[in-house]
């Protein structure tokens, strides 16, 4: 894990290379995180991967989280790993909820990290985050025609009524 001063150095160099990309940094419980502007996430990931001295070329995990009621609402996390130095760095793209029926959008990093293919599909499936440029963005774990973004914080845990024998005719299924 880059320590706190190291993290500030990385953030500084990143802001020099791509101005305005790093919005915030935090170093908490021994883990380093960069909060970046979602429009420049590909530039940030590319810089971290290609710059000599950084070389975070292994994407261990790509996942999303809903920080409701905090703003910005969504965070797409990229867990980067430098295998040579065994250092992990988290990059969080802070996405806003556009509101209404629109879905938050972000550029897909599948070209840079092919491992992101299934993981971006999972983030789309559960949060409704659209990854522009993904070759095959469709639901992966929920049924294809499902309506709703289950993992969002405002989607209730008991989101669908339980269908017993006594109410199975009255309760509408998700496909109705």
């Amino acid at each position, binding site marked *: 894990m880059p320590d706190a001063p190291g993290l500030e150095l990385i953030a500084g160099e990143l802001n020099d290379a791509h101005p305005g990309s790093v919005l915030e940094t935090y170093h908490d419980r021994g883990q380093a995180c960069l909060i970046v502007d979602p429009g420049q996430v590909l530039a940030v990931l590319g810089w971290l991967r290609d710059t000599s001295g950084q070389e975070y070329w292994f994407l*261990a995990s790509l*996942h999303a*989280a809903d920080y409701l009621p905090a703003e910005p609402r969504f965070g797409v996390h990229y*867990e980067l790993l430098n295998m040579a130095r065994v250092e*992990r760095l988290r990059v969080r793209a802070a996405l806003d909820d556009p509101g209404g029926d629109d879905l938050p959008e972000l550029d897909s990093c599948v070209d840079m*990290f*092919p*491992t992101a293919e299934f993981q971006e599909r999972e983030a789309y499936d559960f949060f409704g985050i659209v990854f522009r440029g993904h070759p095959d963005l469709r639901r992966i774990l*929920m049924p294809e025609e499902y309506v709703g973004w289950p*993992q969002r914080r405002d989607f209730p845990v008991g989101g669908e009524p339980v269908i017993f024998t006594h109410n199975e005719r009255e309760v509408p299924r998700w496909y109705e």
Partner: protein
Amino acid sequence: MKTPEAQAEGKVFGAGAEEAAGSGVRHGTAPAPGRDRVAHTEATVIGTSPIERTTVAEPGSDPAAPGREAEEAAGSGSELMTINLGPHHPATHGVLRLLVSLEGEIVRDLKPIVGYVHTGIEKSCEDKSYWKVIPFVERMDYVSYYFQMEAFCGAVERLIGLEIPERAKYLRVIHLELNRIHSHLVWLGTSALDVGAMSMFFYCFRERDRVLDLFEMSSGQRMHTRYFQIGGVFEDIPVGFAEKVRAFCAEMPSRIDQYEALLTRNEIFLRRTKGIGVVPRERLLDLGVTGPLLRAAGEPWDLRKAEPYLSYADHEFRIPVGTIGDGWDRYRVRVQEMRESVRIIEQALEGLPEGPWIADDRKYVLPPRNELSTSMESLIHHFKLVTEGFRVAPGEVYNAIEGPRGELGCFVVADGSAKPARVHFRDSSFVNLQVLRDMCMDEYVADLIQNLAMLDPILGGIDR
């Protein structure tokens, strides 16, 4: 025996009635160009068949990556047939559905469809206090349950900043390595079954049952034991457990020798697995593959050595690494990992320190029951912990451990309440599944089954 020119094109079975009538028995052709291995044998073929065999690749091309030449060689007259494998299928390890586009017997495209055992574990965890999440996340990858517990408990312990006692670390390592042996035994039995070696299944499950008996002895449950708690382990190991584990470890290497004697030099197993499913190391790293698949391809990456957690730094063990990463290498790596796990367990038992098995911090850990009748504070803490649970200051953490299938990561977001705001598991099977397409492209369907077995997917982890 050389056959007429008409058959040298690659058709083994007679095309016309007159050829069939002429001699009902056809002999195998001279070795056709490419990887058409069956044609190499001088097998006797009886009768005619409407199936035409396609040959693939020109001579000299790499059998592991036939690629584009195969398509041209096969000719443009053949069309692709898309079939559906699963979700219920005797060969798939769980409810995995594969849409396979075939050209004859060659796989041209592969799409895995998952989600048939998705039970919304990650969503349900947001509604439970941190203790109650532990039995939930155990049940994701249902074969390596201790690893899920360790990933989650480790993440929460990092969030709280709780140090677990040494004895708890050693006990956790013992159980984790026993679970690794258990997981590899299940894999070996089912994979050998897929390839056709049915007796391996029974031998492996005999050993697996001994591991389950050990788990039952230490925690009362065979599977999904809820043994790891935030702060350590649930309770100390009973008298006699160490002796039983030692007896198991003493016998296990000879059992592994028996498995190797059945499979490692077995001609059928070698012909099924040698050179099959090779994916270059760089492509594996691009796809995020970790665990035995990556190590079989020659990359010595193991989180137990790279980022030692618990007591792994105190133990001496080696990381088995393969060479080219075909099915045989994957088999060898996992079998050797079983041997190394036995060594780790023996060392952990040797060095098992005395002391508490769970942390002493009453804010997060239940006080001992004998104090409840004498101490008011213990009673209050017990009450609050059981009803509401402990609260965790806001923050987020990603904790990665080395599971039997690769990097198992747990991401927990805490928002200050007694329930986690987000629990996400970076499951190794889910990420590893992406390599199945690369492994199976331009290979036979039979090799697809074998590749799937060697990939070792557990659908509970993929679907969560």
